[in-house]
């Protein structure tokens, strides 16, 4: 029984960064912007979070630094694509490339240093309950943030007027503009929210998952988060499900490697990436369904005419 609980806990830990990054990107894409820089913002959050935690000795300051780092870095993308109307695909790619380089440079002195880990929740009495205690009341703080964030985004997008406005911008920025909605302002805020989420996701990697700094430690998770948004057809609760499926794949291959299953470890390591491809194929096979769900202005630059 203990093993099951442990596996479930590690799956949650692996799923949390995917979930947070994907939920952030979901809001960005719902506003009609495609930010391919998730991997870059995530790695910047990871290095910022680790660095601040390491230098101050407080993982909580690290957590805040990770969020701030992701948000500030995403601002770069926002200025380029929203104010200068650059190509979103190319700009997002360059954000990722820049983030990978910049984080490597900033983290030179952090390699091999012991990091600070965010403590797990521990409520006297509740956490000690067998089985459910640790699952419900004994996880790291970012896990609870991720669940709350998913619920909040669900409520915001589908139950509030602002959320409706945001979705309408994503479906037709021209009509929204004609109605007097400030398209660019909404998109700025969405992109920054997405950046903060990606930063937080990166912070989870360097403050909880493996509390240390390793170059390229995001290992493609930012890209998988992007794929998750497509997989979820832009719905928050499906992102939640998808993130946990991928968390399970990630942990499953690690356990398989540890058990010494007679399959090359590299094949097991490539499973999350192969699974992403397979899942994308399965979900986009139905062309009509994809077209119905995709925000109609996704990726198109918008320059308000005056």
């Amino acid at each position, binding site marked *: 029984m203990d093993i099951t609980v442990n596996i479930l806990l590690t799956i949650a830990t692996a799923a949390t960064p995917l979930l947070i990054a994907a939920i952030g990107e979901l809001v960005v894409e719902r506003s009609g912007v495609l930010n*391919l820089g998730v991997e870059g913002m995530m790695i910047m959050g990871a290095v910022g979070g680790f660095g601040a935690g390491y230098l101050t000795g407080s993982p909580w300051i690290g957590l805040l630094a990770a969020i701030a780092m992701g948000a500030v870095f995403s601002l*770069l993308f926002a200025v*380029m694509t929203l*104010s*200068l*109307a*650059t*190509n979103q*695909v*190319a*700009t997002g*790619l*360059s*954000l990722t*490339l*820049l*983030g*990978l*380089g*910049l984080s*490597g*440079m900033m983290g*030179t002195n952090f390699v091999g240093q012991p990091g600070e880990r965010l403590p797990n929740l521990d409520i006297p009495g509740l956490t000690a309950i067998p089985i459910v205690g640790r699952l419900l009341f004994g996880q790291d703080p970012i896990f609870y943030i991720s669940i709350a964030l998913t619920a909040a985004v669900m409520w915001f997008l589908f139950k509030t007027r602002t959320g409706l406005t945001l979705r309408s911008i994503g479906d037709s920025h021209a009509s929204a503009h004609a109605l007097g909605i400030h398209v660019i302002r909404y998109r700025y805020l969405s992109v920054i929210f997405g950046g903060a989420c990606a930063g937080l996701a990166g912070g989870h990697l360097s403050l909880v998952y493996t509390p240390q700094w390793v170059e390229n430690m995001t*290992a*493609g998770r930012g*890209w998988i988060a*992007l*794929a998750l948004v*497509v997989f979820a057809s832009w719905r928050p609760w499906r992102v939640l499900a998808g993130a946990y499926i991928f968390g399970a794949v990630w942990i499953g291959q690690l356990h398989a490697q540890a058990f010494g299953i007679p399959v*090359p470890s*590299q*094949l097991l*390591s*490539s499973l999350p*990436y*192969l699974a*992403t*491809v397979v899942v*994308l*194929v399965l979900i*986009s*096979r139905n*062309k009509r369904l*994809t077209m119905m769900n995709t925000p109609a202005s996704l990726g198109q630059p918008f*320059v308000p*005419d*005056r």
Partner: protein
Amino acid sequence: MRLELVKRPQRSMLFSALSPFIAFVLTIIAGAIMFALLGVNPLTAFRIYFIEPISQVWQLHELAIKAAPLILIAVGLSVCYKANIWNIGAEGQFILGGIVGSIFPVLFPQFEGPLVLPLMLLFGMIGGAAYAAIPALLKTRFNTNEILTSLMLVYVAQLFLDWLVRGPWRDPQGHGFPQTIQFNDSAILPELLPESGRANWGFVFALIAAVLIWILMSRMLKGFEVRVLGSSPRAGRFAGFGLSRMVFFAFLLSGALAGLAGISEVSGAIGQLQPVISPGYGFTAIIVAFLGRLNPLGIVAAGLVLALTYLGGEAVQSALGISDKVARVFQGMLLFFVLGCDTLIHYRIRLTGLSAPKLEAAPKLEEAR
């Protein structure tokens, strides 16, 4: 203060030519700030970064070695991007080209003679093209986003190469090092001018590819098809150009060139397969493609510039003790500034006060009524 874009009646030829240079100057300025923050005199750093790595003839050879794969991959990618097809997995196609091209020297080391190299190069191209065919097939058949699939396959390719050189293809006499046997002499891409440096035929391949793609894009119907489908798929459909065929064409072409770059690198610069055969050429080539304005001849120049950022990164690392990641930062900044400057081609930038547009607009509305 607010930034406002005003559409130009037609694209500005002036900024079209100037924008890469403005971007380069801005990168230099940002780089100077970065070096100053790192506590290094920017002038010293720039001398070490941009001048010293190309001050001797043998160093120019090194520049050509680094530029060759960048140019080869980037001219292929430029066709994709012109057609609005986003192959960002060239790094994986590069690796597969290196692997498939190495079949002969690794598995049949006794096979020697003048036939070996052409076969290796051909197999390299086939390997890269076949790997690129996967995202193309998934896009045309299942409507799958090619950005994500091509990128995911990069990780798979890296792990596949890692498995090969640690497992079945490992040199049994290699003292357990994860690498294949050294290629025999007839499997090594010859050097161009052995008396002055190491540069090999890969650079010539790159120049030939650039010229051929330039002819394709500017003188042939296929190039016109690429441009039409890229700027307006609808117009392309009316003209009878098939989007699916174009997806395959662009992916296979760019994959084959990336594969050629891969096998040229393995057979020319390295001489065997190792766990890592590319310092991110496939990704840097994306920057090269954009810096070269998606024009094959511009890409040759851009490839040389980006090759210099690699050499400079190594130089500042050994001379100043700064991480060679500085090269990646320079490359990223350069792409950012290029994309930003490209806005000037289509738009005029106007700075206005916050309330100005509203005041202007209000009376006009009244008149209209």
